[in-house]
């Protein structure tokens, strides 16, 4: 019996674009009927290139946008923000980490205030309790207590992403949507953040929906993989299935396009080059 935490069925989202004074509006199908399950404590990676609808999917899962049709269930509770709005319980269930660590923190808010805001708005903790919780969380994500009173612009990109992660898990959500959390970061920082995410998953039993375009990262972190192409899920399976035996032509194109940094491929390339020259 598998313990499914997130159940998505036939999720669709259309956008109306254009539709000025003289032109009829056009309907853009950003997500065209996507279904998947995520089990508790595991990571689902959603892979695709720009415009494939993966960010729209993230916005629907985190209740920023409402789906046009289809259903999302978290722990058996259907999520429908158009009818009931967002309740406190729903907010505590899902949170998101954005791609750009420079845009996701309020430049005029100190780190402490950033971390305490979710607690202030959703719990009845006292100021001192909130402070303690924020300080404890800073330590969890590998920052120091003295960072508590600083402004975001005093931090590097990797440190800011740590803060963004800390904010997202302040309310102890069960599900965390990570929208390209490492693609704006340097390689060495990327490794640190991936390690941090793995640590936090172990400690809090978090479930991740990890959205990315980088196959090497996905291969490293995912349990299950879903490949999206023009709003459709063209491939969905466990990591070994998808990477070992891709079914869809697009998935194979994607794999072929990913640069290979192993010695054998470099040697092959150089040999081909010298053969062409000679």
């Amino acid at each position, binding site marked *: 019996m598998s313990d499914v935490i997130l159940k998505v069925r036939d999720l669709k989202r259309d956008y109306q674009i254009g539709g000025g004074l003289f032109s009829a509006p056009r309907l853009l199908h950003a997500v065209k009927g996507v279904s998947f399950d995520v089990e508790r404590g595991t990571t689902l990676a959603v892979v695709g290139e720009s415009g494939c609808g993966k960010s729209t999917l993230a916005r629907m899962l985190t209740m920023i946008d409402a789906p046009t049709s289809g259903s999302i269930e978290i722990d058996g509770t259907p999520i429908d923000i158009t009818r009931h709005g967002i309740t406190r319980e729903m907010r505590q269930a899902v949170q998101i980490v954005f791609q750009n660590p420079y845009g996701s923190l309020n430049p005029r808010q100190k780190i402490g205030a950033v971390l305490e805001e979710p607690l202030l*708005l959703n719990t009845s903790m006292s100021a001192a309790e909130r402070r303690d919780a924020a300080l404890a969380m800073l330590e969890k994500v590998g920052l120091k207590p003295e960072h508590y*009173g600083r402004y975001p612009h*005093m931090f590097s990109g990797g440190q800011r992403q740590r803060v963004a992660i800390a904010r997202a898990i302040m309310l102890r959500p069960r599900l965390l949507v990570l929208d390209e959390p490492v693609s704006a970061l340097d390689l060495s920082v990327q490794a640190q953040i991936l390690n941090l995410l793995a640590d936090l998953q172990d400690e809090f039993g978090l479930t991740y929906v990890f959205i990315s375009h980088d196959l090497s990262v996905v291969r490293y972190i995912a349990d299950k993989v879903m490949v999206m192409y023009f709003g459709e899920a063209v491939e969905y399976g466990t990591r070994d299935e998808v990477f070992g035996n891709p079914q869809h032509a697009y998935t194979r194109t994607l794999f072929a396009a990913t640069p290979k940094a192993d010695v054998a491929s470099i040697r092959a390339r150089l040999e081909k080059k010298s053969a062409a020259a000679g």
Partner: protein
Amino acid sequence: MTDTPVSTAAVEAESRNATRKMLAEFWFYFSRNRGAVAGLVVFGALVLVALAAPLVAPHHPDMQYRDSFLTPPAWAQGGKAAFLLGTDAVGRDILSRLIFGARFSLFIGLVVVTIALTGGIVLGLVAGYFRGWVDTVIMRVMDVILAFPSLLLALVLVAVLGPGLGNAMIAIAIVLQPHFVRLTRAAVLAERNRDYVVAARLAGAGPLRLMFKTILPNCLAPLIVQATLSFSNAILDAAALGFLGMGAQPPTPEWGTMLAEAREFILRAWWVVTFPGLAILITVLAINLVGDGLRDALDPKLKRS
């Protein structure tokens, strides 16, 4: 929690440090602009003089010296040491009137900017945050106000409300307000879809908190600059209204009103018009320089974050 009181103090000290660092950085960029610093010094002096007017002024502003009508400045021929900048047509000391006039001018600037800024921010936030028909209605009304020549509109408003300094200030504030509304709205539109706003919304922040606590502080930089520039505009407009007889009424020593009273002596006694004019010029120039410096200091910060 493993938190000890010692580290609590350290954390608070660090927090204060961060604030101080922000201010130091701001001052660094501001002080790089020499004109702005000069403007600030002049403006500061003006504020001091205005506050200490009864102590600084050599005479009472309304005291008429019957034996010395239209006395030239002290250094000119026929001048008296007692009246440094000369006297006007009814024998009042011009220097004293200018010093007391500074009070009015600064008061006008402060009140007008406060009214226009408050109204502008609220309307701009509402328009930019809610969009839709609310936005349309607010912005069209602002467009209508902007379509009138500003001084003319202020004149009409004063004519309706009745002449007087208070009504003049309200009229000028209404005329200046659309600039703040537009500026706020544009800034809100740029900020409202940023990730940090979405994140605050997901954390459960309601519209009021999002508008005033999350978005507004990030829109303040252009507003502060506009506020300083409006400050000088308000002084100018008030002087103009005073000159046209619709602002402060005689014998109030307001600079524009002083100019108006001196109109008929322009050819005979140059000092009666020159000094109030210079006072307006210097004040407005100083404030505009400060505004320039503020823009220098606040803009790079916006780009960096």
